[in-house]
């Protein structure tokens, strides 16, 4: 009579997903890479900036300490950084605060609360902030107004919008072709100075401006991935670009999951007119040529009112929710008259409670699978939009817009590295999504099997 085949995955969604990822080396590696990318995106201001982390004394009032880098953070950045740090320390403080490790809810709530409080306190206490682009701190250090020896600098001492025109389109500095002489000429390669055969004029040199804290002119670490048209460091811009590219994927997937689940659950559970209306809506939206709808909406929204990251994510969600809604609707239809749902009603549960507590958690499997693939798809759409110049606004970088920095074949690093990151991240999303699918998709195993 007992049915459970021991190898059949069972239990709640989270533990099934965890087991599926643990069992697949590729999915594990993909998840590790994604976590690394997300960490870099969250910590970007602390990793790379033209601001010092700490300055011992500023000219006007000696002895006063300032935190130029922290002052430039937004409350959202503080929230994410605190959350990230708490997540990193999770095993430790969970051990300290909760005796039973099985209680995930309170731990998550406490972490979110702590991060939120930190962000609010920070937002309330900080003075007016300069936008996180370029600062005059390096100039003040160079002029001697601030003693560079008292400054604590972040690991990479360049801002994502910090230009250095003498180094425009400089190849990765570990290459021989990137070597620049003290006078400011490329030493070898196609960009070495050539005397004009007619006029005899040699192009004017452009000496490299090495600012305080930066690696030496020809250090291989100066611009490990090269620079763009304004001499901005590509590596730094890729780190900051990850914030846009990763968050658009995640936000759009979360939004389309939410809309899809609500619509699908309502259609499946209430049936009748609600179902008819929503099902026709799903069909209509599915017929839209999604990408052109996105183009239309983006070209007509004001980036000052709605930040491009949000509008892109929202538009992707608005055209993407039907696929999730259809899956949830089908599952809810299947579960609506399942024994345990009838049993919940027999117990006196209200319709809202029945659907939220009993139907939905059991109907989410396919929707979670669809959403996990939607993260990668959303990231790709963002890359395409940014490539077309419809994404985030200058000078904020995203991987897609970095690819379009230059179409010159000689500037291969500008297409290769952002392109590789897009490829890597989407591949990782799909590998993790594949593991999620194997854990949750009812088509791959019969998780509602009932012996009769």
């Amino acid at each position, binding site marked *: 009579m007992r049915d459970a085949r021991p190898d059949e995955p069972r239990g*709640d969604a989270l533990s099934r997903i965890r087991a599926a990822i643990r069992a697949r080396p590729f999915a594990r590696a993909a998840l590790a890479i994604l976590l690394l990318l997300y960490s870099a995106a969250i910590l970007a201001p602390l990793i790379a900036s033209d601001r010092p982390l700490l300055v011992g004394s500023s000219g006007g009032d000696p002895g006063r300490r300032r935190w130029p880098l922290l002052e430039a953070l937004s409350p959202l950045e503080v929230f994410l950084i605190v959350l990230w740090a708490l997540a990193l320390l999770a095993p430790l403080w969970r051990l300290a605060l909760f005796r039973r490790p099985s209680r995930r809810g309170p731990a998550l709530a406490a972490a979110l609360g702590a991060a939120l409080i930190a962000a609010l306190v920070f937002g309330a206490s900080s003075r007016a902030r300069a936008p996180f682009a370029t600062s005059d701190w390096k100039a003040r250090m160079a002029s001697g107004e601030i003693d560079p020896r008292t400054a604590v600098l972040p690991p990479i001492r360049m801002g994502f919008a910090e230009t250095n025109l003498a180094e425009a389109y400089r190849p990765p500095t570990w290459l021989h072709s990137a070597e620049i002489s003290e006078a400011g000429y490329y030493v070898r390669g196609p960009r070495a100075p050539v005397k004009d055969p007619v006029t005899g004029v040699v192009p004017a040199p452009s000496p490299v401006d090495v600012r305080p804290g930066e690696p030496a002119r020809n250090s291989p670490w100066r611009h490990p991935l090269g620079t763009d048209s304004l001499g901005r460091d590509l590596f730094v811009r890729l780190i900051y670009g990850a914030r846009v590219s990763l968050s658009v994927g995640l936000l759009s997937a979360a939004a389309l999951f939410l809309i899809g689940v609500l619509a699908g659950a309502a259609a499946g559970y209430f049936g009748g007119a609600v179902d008819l209306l929503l099902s026709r809506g799903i069909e209509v939206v599915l017929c839209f040529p999604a990408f052109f709808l996105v183009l239309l909406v983006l070209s007509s929204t004001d980036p000052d009112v709605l930040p491009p990251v949000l509008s892109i994510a929202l538009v992707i969600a608005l055209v993407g929710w039907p696929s999730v809604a259809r899956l949830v609707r089908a599952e809810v239809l299947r579960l609506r008259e399942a024994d345990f749902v*009838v*049993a919940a009603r*027999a*117990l*006196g549960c*209200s319709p809202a409670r029945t659907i939220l507590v009993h139907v939905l958690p059991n109907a989410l499997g396919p929707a979670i699978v669809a959403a996990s693939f939607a993260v990668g798809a959303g990231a790709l759409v963002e890359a395409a939009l940014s490539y077309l110049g419809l994404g985030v606004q200058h000078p904020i970088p995203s991987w897609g817009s970095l690819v379009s920095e230059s179409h010159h074949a000689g500037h291969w690093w500008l297409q290769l590295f952002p392109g590789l990151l897009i490829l890597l991240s989407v591949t990782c999303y799909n590998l993790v999504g594949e593991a999620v699918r194997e854990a949750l998709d009812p088509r791959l195993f019969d998780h509602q099997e009932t*012996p*009769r």
Partner: protein
Amino acid sequence: MKAGSTLRDRAPSPDRGSRRSVLLEVAALTTRFEGAGGAWAAVEDASFRILPGETLALLGESGCGKTATALSILDLLPRSGRIVAGEIRYRGEDLRKLSRAEMRAIRGAEIGMVFQDPLAALDPVQSVGQQVAEAVRLSGNLSRRQVRERAIELLGKVELPEPERIARELPHRLSGGMLQRVMIAIAIARGPSLLVADEPTSALDTTVQAGILDLFRRLQAESGMGILLITHDLAVVAQNAHRAEVMYAGRIVESAPFPDLFLRPRHPYTIALLRSHPSRAARGRRLEPIPGRVPGPAERLSGCRFRDRCPIAKARCAEVEPALIPLSVPGAERAVACHYDEEAIRL
């Protein structure tokens, strides 16, 4: 199992004379289903009463309308089903006239339900403790700790070993018998006066069945609740029921108190059921399967529905559908729907 073996531990049958104390009265209930194959009546003109402390068995093969009757009482019919006629009086109040919210207040709190397949009837993604706790929480404002303690207490009350540990398990990790005990704990969590048990032991091993039936008897003795016990198994009736209503193809064909049903069955269908029960073979007598099968909704015969399987069917059976006629048996409230029941006794 011998019919007489459990006479002793059964609570005495309540006095059926007093109408005042009737817990549930179903009168002329007709429930129709509509499907691709047209509409049909799953239950037709069914009437019965349950008193507090009484176990009424609804007996019959699969497809006789037993479950439809149970779902009708709780207003839990699937969308394709609808009650078209009759009254369902709970403590004198017609449940059909209640609003949805009022009906919700009856479910669980006044009338609990136990389902046939406990694995299917429990939410697969919640621990059984959570599910018992949900039932407890619905019954009133209790603190988190009180809810937890009460849930554990309930699991202990249905005789589960180590209730603390079992409460943390997901349904698929427990055996069928344990799950059915969990299901019963959920059903009695809110202290209902009536328990509807739909084939509560059919999905279980025989040895486990006996334990569950024992539990029903004990819980009934403690709380004095009425039980509507739906089953196809005469042994279950013999062990627990005070009375039985035998259903065939949507109609009640015989109604009798417990020992009489076994000792003096009147309807040919009841007799056929008794002769086809495996316990008969265990006593060294021939097992006689009933020829044919329960007619589907579209195949129901005019006149007596059992006539194609009935050994004594005559011409009149095809013409006139026999009504459920009360019998004048002293000391027992009995009724039978057969033109020739006197003849059936001699079968």
